[in-house]
């Protein structure tokens, strides 16, 4: 079991490395993608600086906490899109019969399929996340928790995308549903949770679990709370397992295709 996990990790790391090498073939495009994503994220902070010049507190957040929120949201987004880029176009992979080459390999089909590509701009998101952490105030404890929450958030976002995209096994074109779900996760993650009340707040801790991926981690980073940390950890494990379950249940309905396909 342990050897299998070790071998799967080895091949996943190799796959991500080769995908990154492919993106780095064109140095100018690669660098500009990373740099411009950092600048793009930074530009959004300006509006918050303007808002906080009028009020000291928005939805229970200070400017520093909003910065941290943006940083963590970028980290979460970056981790999911860099390491698991294909999870966001899984519907297309399923519908076009591109799972064949992964199915004939003795490895986990889902992990192999979603780690064959990386998004260079997502590297910019991760970089931006760490820049924000340094602005917020660096300490080893915060760095560790921030990185952990970035990874857990990334896994939650990826798992949600896998679940929504896997619906393609049953309903064919579900890419729009998946995209809507992914956009909801991204958009809500950049607003202080104090501004949401009632049903919306309930939604953010259940169906669109931004509350668990981003808000709870911000609360833990501001004031450490083991229970909240364990809730995030537990939720991540459950949703990742659910993603595997839905994908493998759907895989039995996979119909492949005879399209001419090249791995480029």
């Amino acid at each position, binding site marked *: 079991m342990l050897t299998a996990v070790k071998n799967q990790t080895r091949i996943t790391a190799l796959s991500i490395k080769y995908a990154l090498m492919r993106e780095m073939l064109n140095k100018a495009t690669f660098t500009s993608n990373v740099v411009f994503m950092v600048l793009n994220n930074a530009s959004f902070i300006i509006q918050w600086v303007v808002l906080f010049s009028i009020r000291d507190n928005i939805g229970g957040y200070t400017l520093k906490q909003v910065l941290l929120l943006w940083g963590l949201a970028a980290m979460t987004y970056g981790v999911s899109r860099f390491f698991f880029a294909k999870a966001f176009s899984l519907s297309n992979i399923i519908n076009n019969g591109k799972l064949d*080459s992964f199915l004939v390999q003795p490895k986990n089909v889902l992990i192999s399929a979603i780690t064959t590509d990386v998004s260079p701009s997502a590297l910019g998101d991760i970089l931006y996340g760490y820049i924000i952490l340094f602005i917020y105030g660096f300490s080893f404890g915060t760095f560790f928790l921030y990185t952990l929450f970035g990874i857990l958030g990334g896994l939650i976002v990826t798992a949600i995308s896998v679940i929504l995209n896997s619906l393609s096994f049953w309903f064919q074109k579900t890419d729009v549903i998946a995209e809507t779900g992914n956009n909801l996760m991204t958009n809500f993650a950049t607003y202080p949770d104090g501004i949401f009340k009632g049903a919306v707040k309930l939604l953010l801790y259940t169906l669109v679990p931004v509350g668990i991926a981003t808000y709870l981690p911000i609360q833990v980073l501001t004031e450490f709370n083991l229970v909240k940390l364990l809730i995030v950890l537990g939720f991540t494990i459950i949703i990742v397992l659910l993603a595997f379950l839905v994908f493998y249940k759907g895989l039995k309905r996979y119909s492949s295709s005879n399209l001419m396909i090249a791995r480029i």
Partner: protein
Amino acid sequence: MPKEGRFMAIITVKNLSKTFKVKLKEKGLKGSIKSIFKPKYKVVRAVNNISFEVEKGEIIAFIGPNGAGKSTTIKMLTGILYPNKGEVNVLDINPVVNRKKLAYQIGTVFGQKEQLWTHLTPYDNFKFFGAIYDIPEAAVEKKIEEFNEVFELSEFINTPVRNLSLGQRIRCEIVASLIHEPKVLFLDEPTIGLDPVVKENIRTLIKRMNKEYKTTIFLTSHDVGDIEKLCKRVIIINDGKIVLDDSMENLKYHYLNKKIVEVKMREKVNLDNEEGITILKDKGYNLKIEVDITKKSVTDALKLLNPENIVDINISNIPLEDIISTIYKEGI
């Protein structure tokens, strides 16, 4: 248990069926709107109750026209698709139950689907495939060295795959699928789109790996040359059903009851309305006829032409391609 006088079957297929549900749509925008509210489906039976066995070390041709069910069958044998009915066993492993275990034992090459990373060299790709099959790095290096020699890859082993010719790429695809020394290799149209010289190279490679590594080869191809030059047994599938499962020798023996006779003559001969003779081409002194040997022997046909009258003659079998086409069209 091994059968008397035969090797043990390493692929067993029993009453295998696969159906697909296909959405029907009436033409035009109106049809598209209608299909949203009242979708109609039809069930396509891609593979219909087929059974066969393959023995160790065989090179078997699994052929049929487009849409006959070849690829669907291969995909069920390799664990890509789940069958609706029936049993599949490859090397005593059920692909549905134990896909990963089977994957360590088999290799697959889909001529229409590329598995190699195009920005990497074949060498790096082989190392990647070695890692997929959990082979220690030193063993992969050794294997690459061996393949480099056996399959003559040195000329392009360090060139990125995207810069290789189609023939070189397919060669690398096949070699990559051998890195873990599979016991069975599934080749789905490996020579598609290749020129005759490259096709011949690929055939040599397939023959060599069958001979050197005792690999059982399950081949689908539309190229009669592949089938004729590589396979000793042929299974023909049409409309999801097996219409023929026989040795190549028997196929030729049973279906080659016609001979093609091409003659150059001194004087014209009229063979119109002769029983057992069909005139294929008549250019005066040059004649091409088909002799049905169940009705008339070749000797009798030659007597009609008058041996003294013949300047040059060529007698040949009906091309295998024509036999297969006839089976596709008419069945057995």
